[in-house]
C-alpha cells in the first residue's frame, strides 16, 4: 500500500505534534528569556543601582559631616582638638574620595564629574592650609592676616562642603529617579511578558483544541462510521468505503474490498449450494425430482395431508426399443417430453418424480378414485398425442402406462413413521401391481389397483400401443 506523507494521518500527527512542540518550546524559551532578563534587571537594580543609591546617600551624610568637622578645626584651641578634628577630617575626606571615585566612574557627564573633583581637591587643600594656620594660631604665632585667612577659609570650606553635599544630593536624586525609571521599565516589561505569555498560552490551548477536534473528525468519527457500517445487518461496501488518501480511507477501502469479496463468495456459495441441492433431489435430464426426493416429499405429504391421496406409477411403453432403434439421444428426448407432459398435467404442488429409467411416480391429493383415473388418463392421452421425427420419414409416437392407487384415509398412519413408510410402500406396491396389470393388458392405459383395467378410450389405447411397437 502506498504511503503518502503529504496527506496521511502520520504526516498530520507529525505536523500537529510539531506545532504543539514548537509552541511549547517557544513558550518555555520565552518564559526563560523573560525570567532571565527580569532577573538581570532586578539584579542590576539590587546590586549596582541600589549600591549607587546607597553610596550617594552615604556621601550626602558624610559631606554634611564635613561642615561641622571643618568648624571644629577652625575653632580648635589646642593641638589635641586640632589633631582630633584633622584625623576625623582626613578619615572622612579619604572615604568620600573613595566613594565618589566609585560613583563617578559610571557618570558620563564630565562637567559634573570635574566639578565634584575640583570641589573635593580644593576642600582638601583648604583643610590642609587651615590646619597649618590653626597650628600657628594655637602656638601664638599667627599674624592678623592669618586670622583673617582662617575666617575666610572656614567660610569657604563650609561653602565647599555644602556645595559637595548639594552635588551628592543631586546624585542621590538622579540615582533615585533612575531607579524609579528602572522600576517602571521593569513593570512595563513584566506586563508585556505577561501579555505575551497569555497570548502564547491561548495559542497553545487553541492548538490543543484544534488537535482534539481534528482527531475527532479525521479519526474517531470515521472509524465509528466504518464500525457502524460493518455492524449493520446488511453490510454495504459502499457505506464502508470512504474517500481520501489517508490511512483510514485506505483501511475503509481495504475493508470494503474484503466485504465485497466475502459477498461474492457468499452468493457463489449460495448458488452452488442451490445447484447441489437441486442436483441431489432432481433428475438432471427431466428436471423432475429423483427417487430420494420423491420418498421424502411423499412422506411429508402423507404425514401432513388430511385429504385422500392418489399414488401413481407410470412407465413409458417400449422405451427400450426406442432407445435401441433411435439412440440414447432420442431416448432422452422422449423421456424429457414425457416428463414435460406429466408435469403439465399435474398441479405445481403435486409431487412428481422420475424414479427409474423410464418410470415415473406421482403422489397428489385427490378427492376420489375416479378423479385419479380421469386425471392420469388425460395425461396418458397427452403423451400419446406426441409426435416426433427422429429422422426424416420416421414418425415416432409413444405411449405410457399408469398404475394408480387411491389412499382414502391417511390419518391412521400419521403418528408413526414406520406406518407411514409402510403406507407409502404399500401404496407404491399397489400402484406397481396396477402398472404391471396395465402392461399386461396391452399397455397405454391407466389401471387402478382395485378395479378392472379401465379406459375411457380403449381403441385409441390399443392402436397407439401397436404403433409404438413398430
Amino acid at each position, binding site marked *: 500500500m502506498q504511503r503518502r506523507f503529504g496527506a496521511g494521518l502520520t504526516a498530520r500527527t507529525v505536523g500537529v505534534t510539531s506545532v504543539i512542540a514548537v509552541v511549547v518550546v517557544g513558550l518555555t524559551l520565552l518564559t526563560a528569556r523573560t525570567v532571565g532578563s527580569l532577573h538581570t534587571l532586578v539584579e542590576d537594580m539590587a546590586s549596582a543601582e541600589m549600591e549607587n543609591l546607597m553610596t550617594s546617600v*552615604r556621601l550626602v551624610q558624610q559631606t554634611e559631616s564635613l561642615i561641622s568637622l571643618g568648624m571644629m578645626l577652625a575653632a580648635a584651641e589646642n593641638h589635641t582638638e586640632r589633631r582630633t578634628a584633622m584625623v576625623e577630617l*582626613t578619615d572622612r575626606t579619604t572615604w568620600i574620595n573613595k566613594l565618589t571615585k566609585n560613583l563617578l566612574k559610571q557618570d558620563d557627564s564630565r562637567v559634573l564629574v570635574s566639578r565634584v573633583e575640583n570641589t573635593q581637591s580644593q576642600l582638601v587643600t583648604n583643610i590642609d592650609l587651615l590646619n597649618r594656620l590653626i597650628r600657628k594660631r594655637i602656638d601664638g604665632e599667627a599674624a592678623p592676616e592669618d586670622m583673617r585667612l582662617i575666617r575666610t577659609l572656614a567660610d569657604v570650606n563650609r561653602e565647599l562642603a555644602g556645595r559637595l553635599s548639594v552635588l551628592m544630593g543631586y546624585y542621590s536624586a538622579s540615582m533615585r529617579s533612575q531607579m524609579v525609571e528602572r522600576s517602571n521599565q521593569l513593570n512595563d516589561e513584566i506586563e508585556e511578558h505577561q501579555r505575551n505569555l497569555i497570548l502564547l498560552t491561548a495559542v497553545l490551548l487553541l492548538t490543543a483544541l484544534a488537535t482534539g477536534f481534528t482527531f475527532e473528525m479525521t479519526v474517531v468519527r470515521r472509524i465509528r462510521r466504518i464500525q457502524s457500517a460493518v455492524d449493520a445487518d446488511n453490510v454495504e461496501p459502499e457505506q464502508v468505503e470512504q474517500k481520501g488518501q489517508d490511512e483510514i480511507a485506505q483501511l475503509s477501502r481495504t475493508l470494503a474490498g474484503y466485504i465485497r469479496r466475502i459477498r461474492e463468495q457468499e452468493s457463489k456459495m449460495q448458488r452452488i449450494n442451490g445447484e447441489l441441492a437441486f442436483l441431489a433431489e432432481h433428475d438432471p435430464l427431466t428436471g423432475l425430482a429423483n427417487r430420494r426426493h420423491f420418498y421424502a416429499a411423499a412422506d411429508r405429504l402423507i404425514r401432513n395431508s388430511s385429504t385422500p391421496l392418489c399414488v401413481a406409477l407410470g412407465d413409458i411403453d417400449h422405451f427400450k426399443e426406442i432407445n435401441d432403434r433411435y439412440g440414447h439421444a432420442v431416448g432422452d428426448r422422449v423421456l424429457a417430453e414425457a416428463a414435460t407432459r406429466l408435469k403439465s398435467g399435474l398441479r405445481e404442488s403435486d409431487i412428481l418424480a422420475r424414479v427409474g429409467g423410464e418410470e415415473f411416480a406421482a403422489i397428489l391429493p385427490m378427492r376420489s378414485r375416479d378423479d385419479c383415473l380421469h386425471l392420469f388418463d388425460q395425461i396418458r392421452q397427452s403423451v400419446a398425442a406426441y409426435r416426433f421425427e427422429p429422422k426424416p420419414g420416421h414418425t415416432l409416437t409413444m405411449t405410457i402406462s399408469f398404475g394408480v392407487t387411491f389412499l382414502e384415509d391417511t390419518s391412521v398412519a400419521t403418528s408413526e413413521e414406520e406406518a407411514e413408510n409402510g403406507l407409502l410402500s404399500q401404496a407404491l406396491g399397489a400402484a406397481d401391481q396396477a402398472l404391471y396389470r396395465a402392461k399386461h393388458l396391452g399397455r397405454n392405459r391407466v389401471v387402478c389397483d382395485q378395479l378392472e383395467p379401465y379406459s375411457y378410450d380403449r381403441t385409441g389405447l390399443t392402436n397407439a400401443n401397436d404403433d409404438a411397437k413398430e
Partner: protein
Amino acid sequence: MRMMMPRNNAPACRRPFHLFVLIALFLLALPAWARLDIRVGMQLEPPTLDPTQTAAAAAGEITYCNLFEGLTVIDGDGQLTPRLAKTWSVSDDGLTYTFSLRKDVRFHDGKRFNARSAAFSIKRIVSADSKNPQRKWFEKIRSVEATSEHVLQIHLNHPDSLLTFALALPAAVMVHPDSVAGNATHPIGTGPYRLAEWLPGQKLKLKRNADYWGEKPYLEQAEFYFMQTTAGTENMLAEGMVDGLVSVTRVTNRFGGRPDYKMSNRQLESKMLLAINNGRPPFDDIRVRRALSHAINKNELRTMYGAQFNPDLIGSHFPPSHPAYVDLVDRYPYDPKRARELLREAGVDKGTPVKLTVPPTDYGRYGGLMLAEDLEAIGFKVELDPVDWKTWMQSVFTDKDYALTLIIHVEPMDLNIYARDNYYFNYANDAFKAIWKQVLDARTDKELNHWLGEAQKQIAEDAVNVFLFIRPERNLMHKDLQGLWENSSIPSFVLEDIHWTH
C-alpha cells in the same frame, strides 16, 4: 631517627557523609540554603601578595593557606601539622630533616609541586640576596636538596627544633620558580583558592580552586575589602556590605552589640609599639628614648578600643602568655616629669619638632592622637603624618625614613628582629646579638627561656621602642559564620573551614 607522625586534623564536620548531605541539599536547592561566599573587611591592603617578600602581615593574612601553602601549617587548633609535606623525620644528630612530600599537588597554573620546587622555595629564603622577612628563622640551614621527586632534605649547621614551626610561617610558603616573579600581583600557589581579581584600594577577590589537591572548601568565593577609613568601616558594617572585620577596631565595640555580629577570638601576639628610629637624632640618645617610655600613658592608651577591652600591657617585645615572659611593664612608669628631665639632660629643647608617622589603621589614627598629646606634654612639637600602607612599608620599613611610628607587630616569636642588621628600628647592639646567639643555641627549655628573658630585658633596658600593649585580638564576624581558625597563632584568615550555618 625520630618519626613525627601527622596528626589527623580533619575537623569532625568535614567527613564524606556531611559532604554528601551538603551536596544533596545543594542539589535540592533549598531556598534557605547557606551562602557560598564571604566578604570580610581588612584595614591594611598588602603592598604585595607574595608573603615571602614582605613584612606586611596583610599579605600572609590573605594568602596563608588560601593561595599559598607551606610544608607545615599551624592549624585552626594552633597545632603544628603537615601540609604539603606528608611526614618528616629528623636524624639523630638533629642536623638533617627529611620531608616526604605530597605527590598530588599542583600549582594554580598546573605545574607540579615536587621536591625541586620545595628546594627552590627554601633556598630562595636563605639566599644571600633574600628579601624574605623571616629569613632569620632559617639561618641554621646549611643546604637544601631534592633527593628524589618527592623527598626533600634540609641539612642544618646546628640542631633547630623550631625549623618545622618556621616552615609553617606565611613567609615560608611554597612557590614555583616559573611563577615566583609574578607572585606579587598574580600569586600562583598550591592553595584551595586562587586570585580572581585585585582592585587596588578597593578589594581583592578569591575563587575556589577546582583542582585543589585536598578537601574542597565550602565557600566558592571570598572578598577582602580594604577599609582605610573609620567612616568607611562604619558605613560598610552598618549596611551589611561586609560579613565581618578581621582584627579589632574602635567600631568593633559598637557593632559587637548588634544581634547579627559576634566577636570571635584570635590567638595572635600582636604587640603594639611606638617604634623609634634608633639611628636618627635625637633618638639615638638612650635618654631620649627612655624619656619617650616614661612619657606615654599606656593605661590611657589601652582604652582606645573601648572600655570592655582591657589589653595586657607589655614592657618588652614579648607576649605575657609565653612561659619566658618577663614582666617589664613597670620598667618605665608613666612619669612626664622624669621624661622632661631626661630630655633636658639629653639637651633636647622644648618645642623640638617630631613627626609621628601613622599607618592607615584605626589604632594609627586614634592612638596617634593620644601619643601626640603625651609627647607634647613633655615638650615635643608633634606632627601627625598619616600615610597609606604602601608608603608606610616603603618609607618607614624599607627606607627607614621616619622618626616615630605607631605600629603593631603580629608575627609570633619575632624577638629576633632586634638581632637583625638594618631592621627599621636601626637598633644595633652587640650585647643583644650575643644574647640572641645564646637563645638560638639553647639546649633546654629552661636555658631558652632564660635567654629569652635576658633578651627582653636587654631591649627594655635599651628602650629600643616604647612597648605598649598586646592588642586584644577579636574578629567581628557575622554570627552565622563558623569554621574560623581562631586558635592559630599565624596572622591569617584561613577560609577552608569557614561556612555559613544559615
